[in-house]
């Protein structure tokens, strides 16, 4: 005796027999019979598994299958197996009749040797050491495959239990009698145990051997897992997200890893920042729903962005999506417009998919390198802030002087902001009015030129070395790290604010 579910797991069938419906899989099967002729259904005994041979299976379609299921139920057959390709769609009546007759409807893949299958099923039904050996063999090959299948210890134990058709536990030695256990050694110390029930017969020897193999495989897997944890594998998106939110010192390592992941971190970038505003409103009291919606939006956004061509990566968390367009060769500021077009498309597609989603979108300028990437991201955020002040939704707002000016005006109108600008530029102010103005002009040109000395020199009509000297001096006075985009941006804002 065995349940239908157990028969489906018979190792020698190799998964060739599978359920067509999730019905009656717990039914006990007492015998197995092969039927060549559809009309011979009065022969199999109750509780049997009836396998229809090829011709009969071919005939058992449409109304005939209905009739067959009804007859089988009337004879209390436990399961009916057809040799068939997977069924694309099950007729309504078939499902109903199987359900009503508590009859398991199974499919055997064409090309399966029916004679062998029947023998395997008969052995399974007969039970005994042969059956255990058969199963242990399947367990061993599973254990050997564990690494390739990327199974962790708990998953491996679960799969082995399935293959063995018996309970296998992972954890402390179970209380009660009759348990066989083997320890999993971690760093030489016994960790959890793997255990299964013995029956006091010779078969227990097989079980013990199996448990030891299982334990040592689990040990191998566990230590491999720990090694892997030291170098957490991050997806590009996670890495970029970290890169864009972590402080610069920590990000050096990330930059290195980004290069390893083939992210063109050293190229030129424009960041499109999308803020999904009303997720909570769209899915009130449903965090999971809101999360899924954000995931969907992110996916659609990325697909739409990619459809416009070029290299795109994404980053972001929760309701914020960052799309990063990168170029390997030098990109001019005009490319921001190209990205803006792509962003409009992205917004359109995302909103076509999630009709009432409200999106704020800001686009940063074109900047180079990892610092440039962060700058562009900050600018994108600033652009959103600008958009916010005028209530613009579902359009892409570029970080540009106009928008910036508006934000700056509003920002600079705040006492706090004026104070912090004054504080920041105070060391320069102390140089006296004329020198201070010249310093701020130089600094702004340098910052606007994306930290390019030669371009700043061009703008200022000064020698490059002069600019280099002044800049070095200015940063010293200000005590500002030129590699920190946040501070640079603040400086840039301060310079501009002064000019308002």
């Amino acid at each position, binding site marked *: 005796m065995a349940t239908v579910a157990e028969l489906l797991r018979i190792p020698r069938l190799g998964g060739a027999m599978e359920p067509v419906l999730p019905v009656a899989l717990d039914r006990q099967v007492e015998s197995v019979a092969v039927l060549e002729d559809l009309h011979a259904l009065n022969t199999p005994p109750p509780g049997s598994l009836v396998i229809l041979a090829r011709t009969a299976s071919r*005939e058992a379609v449409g109304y005939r299958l*209905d*009739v*067959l299921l009804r007859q089988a139920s009337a004879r209390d057959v436990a399961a009916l197996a057809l040799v068939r390709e997977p069924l694309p769609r099950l*007729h309504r009546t078939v499902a109903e*009749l199987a359900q009503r007759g508590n009859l398991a409807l199974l499919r055997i893949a064409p090309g399966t040797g029916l004679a062998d299958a029947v023998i395997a099923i008969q052995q399974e039904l007969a039970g005994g050491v042969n059956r255990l050996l058969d199963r242990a063999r399947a367990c061993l090959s599973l254990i050997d495959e564990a690494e390739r299948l990327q199974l962790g210890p708990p998953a491996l134990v679960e799969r082995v239990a399935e293959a063995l058709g018996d309970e296998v536990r992972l954890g402390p030695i179970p209380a009660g009698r009759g348990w066989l256990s083997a320890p999993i050694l971690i760093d030489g110390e016994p960790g959890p145990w793997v255990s299964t029930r013995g029956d006091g017969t010779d078969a227990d020897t097989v079980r013990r051997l199996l448990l030891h193999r299982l334990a040592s495989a689990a040990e191998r897997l566990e230590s491999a897992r720990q090694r892997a944890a030291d170098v957490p594998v991050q997806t590009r998106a996670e890495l970029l997200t970290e890169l864009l939110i972590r402080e610069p010192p920590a990000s050096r390592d990330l930059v290195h890893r980004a290069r390893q992941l083939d992210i063109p971190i050293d190229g030129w970038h424009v960041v499109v920042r999308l803020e999904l505003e009303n997720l909570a409103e769209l899915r009130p009291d449903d965090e999971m729903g809101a999360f899924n919606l954000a995931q969907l939006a992110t996916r659609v956004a990325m697909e739409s962005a990619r459809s416009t061509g070029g290299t795109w990566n994404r980053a972001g968390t929760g309701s914020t999506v960052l799309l990063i367009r990168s170029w390997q060769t030098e990109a001019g500021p005009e490319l921001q417009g190209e990205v803006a077009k792509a962003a409009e498309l992205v917004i359109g597609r995302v909103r076509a998919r999630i009709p009432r989603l409200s999106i704020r979108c800001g686009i940063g300028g074109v900047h180079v390198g990892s610092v440039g990437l962060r700058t562009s991201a900050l600018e994108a955020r600033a652009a959103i802030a600008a958009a916010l002040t005028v209530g613009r939704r579902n359009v892409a707002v570029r970080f540009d002087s106009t928008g910036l000016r508006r934000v700056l005006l509003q920002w600079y109108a705040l006492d706090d902001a004026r104070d912090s600008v004054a504080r920041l530029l105070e060391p320069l102010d102390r140089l006296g009015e004329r020198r201070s103005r010249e310093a701020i002009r130089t600094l702004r040109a340098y910052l606007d030129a994306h930290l390019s000395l030669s371009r700043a020199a061009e703008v200022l009509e000064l020698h490059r070395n002069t600019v280099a000297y002044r800049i070095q001096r200015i940063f010293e006075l200000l005590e500002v790290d030129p590699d920190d985009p946040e501070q640079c941006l603040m400086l840039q804002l301060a310079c501009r604010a002064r000019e308002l």
Partner: protein
Amino acid sequence: MTLGEPDLEALARGCAVFGGGGGGDPTLGYVMAREAIRRNGPVPVVDLDELPDDGLILPVAMVGAPTVIEEKIPNGSEGERIQAVYERHFGRPVVAFAVAELGGVEGMLPVAWAAHARLPLADCDLMGRAFPEIHMCTPNLHGLPIGPVVVTDERGNIATFTSIDAAWAERLVRPTCTAMGSCASLAIYPMTAARARGAVVRGSLTRAVQVGRLLEAGDPVAVLEAEVGAVRLIEGKVADVERWTTQGFARGSAVIEGFGDDAGRLLRLEFQNENLVALLDGEVVASVPDVITVLDHGGGAVVSERLRYGQRVTVISFPCHPAWRTATGLGLVGPRAWGYDLDYVPVERIHAARA
């Protein structure tokens, strides 16, 4: 009896019930007949005994896909054209048209042709129900020749077939019909009134009108139980309709999910134009040649091509003409003739056993 405009509706209703899902939507035939009667006056329906023994009777019908007929309505002159061909062929006048197939369009169309030709209709038909092929007629069981068969279309093309047997006539007519645009008008089994008397289903028009009239007034299931010995198979909602086309026949399968007293039951209806087999929870409860008819809640019969998801219907079945229950009859139109691996059991017997 005389068929005037007021009787047509009853005839259409009745024909649809006998059509057993086939024969097309009766409305079209109804309107055609009405237009013809409006133009040419009512059509007398005469019993075969009242016709001269050697008078020529022409059973007429349309062949083709019902959906096509609903779109490509005939010209109107087809019947007269056919009549002229036969009169030339046999050298004597046609005394009456007859209905070849009792169902939807087919039951009504001969009324139109008869009105146009100003001829009476014989009170009979060749099936007592609807079947999709022209050799599935009771005269075939009596060895009467099917031909010559005359086929014509709305353009005026005429084809005449003299075949060695009825099955060959079917085989010849079908491609001609396809060439004509998948619908054509024809006459089959031209015969004298004397030969017709023992070979056809008699009184069918008066019966169809009678049933149609009763259906207008009363509870359809009760009416059909009393009038034709109908058995109620299920009342429910159409839960699935699947269709496919093989060899020019619209085949399909519908599932009706019972409600009310029938809640929890599923009726599977297999059709090939006509409804052929009904299985209730996997058990055959009615099969061809008995008539299986789907009624909507207005009491009208639903032709198989109009079966649609969500419809609320009652399915009934009633005994066919006894000629079909003979060994020859079943050989021609029994379940196996349609590819169903089932033994025919008369519907009333199945019903008695279930009760």
